[in-house]
């Protein structure tokens, strides 16, 4: 494929979606190949049984990645659905325990809008702001808790900045108050080590396409603990413990299973690769005057680097960066042109937020991709600053 320049795109937008792992694609295609391998897992015959067995295998594979019991995993169509099911489902199921809920201002829209919907149902929502480093102070969470608080939802890795919240400490606090804790781990599963036997997490949302699996399949982890339950959002054929009905998407589930297995095998290797890339990228950009790194550098997933630049307009910067594929703000509001609410929550002005570029990369990103990004970024910023009136610089 070519871009408008005639050169191939350089894809540094892994936080939006990752390329699919070739082995995942092969496994999915194989399941289409033979008629007898593509069954309805609810059917009472050999083709149905084979589908069920493949789905069980995938559930085990994902269970191993997370160190979770396979039966605590519910297949969904992605993190958006998982998040909705976790937040809306738990809040409704547990409404008798209280109608106060806590989240953060820097969550993904799926989380933010699930809470908006609950507010319309009469729940009360506290939205805590992080510090300028992007991190939620635990004391703020503690101070926000009330007797009526029944659910806390704080994401693991932020999709725009890569900032990591301390979900262990948050979960521990929640347990001590008998409050359910959900974490949106769409950006961390398959990338950071997650041990759900050890972590005090009740509900965790994930999606395959952020770790080299297929789009349109995800899961909700629901701990097998008293009080940890959700009311379903969809009703029907009884699949997924009646929590998520519909014919199981066999090839999709096989795909997420294989992606989970590969991610587990390569976790350390991939993490060290992106750490090296991030160091290289930051070294290359660091010298540019008037740039700011969004989100702290310490508690941070190294596969995402988000940079604002003074005196540069975001949309022109994006075009000047072609054939680089990067994001300005979250992929989810890319179309809207609104300044990122996440960056504004970190104290950025509209202009600073609009100038932000998110670089995100993964196992297949090479050092020369990074070097090209540095070169293009430097020249684009300097060119646009030359064009701009002085007052804007």
């Amino acid at each position, binding site marked *: 494929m070519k871009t408008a320049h005639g050169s191939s795109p350089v894809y540094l937008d892994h936080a939006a979606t990752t390329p699919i792992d070739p082995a995942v694609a092969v496994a999915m295609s194989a399941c289409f190949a033979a008629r007898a391998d593509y069954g309805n897992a609810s059917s009472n015959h050999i083709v149905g049984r084979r589908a069920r067995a493949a789905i069980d295998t995938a559930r085990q594979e994902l269970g191993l990645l997370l160190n979770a019991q396979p039966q605590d995993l519910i297949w969904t169509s992605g993190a958006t659905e998982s998040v909705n099911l976790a937040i809306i489902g738990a809040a409704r199921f547990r409404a008798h325990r209280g109608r106060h809920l806590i989240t953060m201002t820097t969550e993904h829209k799926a989380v933010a809008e699930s809470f908006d919907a609950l507010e319309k149902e009469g729940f009360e929502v506290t939205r805590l702001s992080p510090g300028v480093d992007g991190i939620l102070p635990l004391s703020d969470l503690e101070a926000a808790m009330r007797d009526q608080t029944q659910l806390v939802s704080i994401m693991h890795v932020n999709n725009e900045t890569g900032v990591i919240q301390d979900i262990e400490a948050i979960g521990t606090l929640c347990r001590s108050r008998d409050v359910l804790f959900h974490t949106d781990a769409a950006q961390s599963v398959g990338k950071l080590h997650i041990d759900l036997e050890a972590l005090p997490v009740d509900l965790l949302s994930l999606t395959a396409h952020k770790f080299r699996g297929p789009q349109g399949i995800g899961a909700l982890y629901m701990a097998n603990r008293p009080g940890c339950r959700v009311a379903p959002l969809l009703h029907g054929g009884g699949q997924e413990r009646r929590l998520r009905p519909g014919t199981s998407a066999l090839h999709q589930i096989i795909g997420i299973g294989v992606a989970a297995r590969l991610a587990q095998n390569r976790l350390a290797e991939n993490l060290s690769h992106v750490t090296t890339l991030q160091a290289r990228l930051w070294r290359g950009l660091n010298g540019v005057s008037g740039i700011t790194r969004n989100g702290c550098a310490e508690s941070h997933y190294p596969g995402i680097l988000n940079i604002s630049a003074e005196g540069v307009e975001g949309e*022109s910067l994006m*075009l000047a960066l072609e054939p680089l594929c990067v994001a300005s703000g979250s992929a989810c509001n890319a179309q809207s042109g609104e300044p990122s609410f996440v960056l504004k929550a970190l104290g950025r002005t509209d202009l600073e937020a609009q100038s932000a570029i998110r670089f995100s990369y993964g196992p297949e990103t090479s050092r020369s991709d990074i070097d090209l990004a540095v070169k293009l970024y430097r020249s684009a910023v300097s060119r646009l600053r030359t*064009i*701009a009136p*002085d*007052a*804007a610089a």
Partner: protein
Amino acid sequence: MTSVTEPVLLGPYNEQVRGLFQNPRHAGDAAAGNGRRYEARASEATAGAQILLIAGVTEGILAALRFRVFGCPHLIAAAEATCERFEGGAVNKLQEFSVSDLMETLGVPVEKMGRILLLEDAIQALLSQVDGKAINRN
């Protein structure tokens, strides 16, 4: 399928916008020569886009017309196209500037009309600075 491929390749910026954006020959300061130098500024209330027009005028002629822009590719391209068109001509030719024509040639999406109106504002401001008598403004 070539009909869908091309817009997909180009995205919201047509060939012309891309060319003007890539190579804005009229960006920067005007050397006003032996004429008089005028500057006109316009900016969005929200402190978003900004445009600065710089003209060097000699005997009613725009000896130089240059711009500086902080803004999106469409505004940069529009400014460049405008300077390209009017530089070297009579000042009062600037009255022929048309937002709608420009939006059409550059394929500017309607929701961005505000940006192009900014350019019009700057041109009006420029015109009102340049000696009013030489110019027929009706």
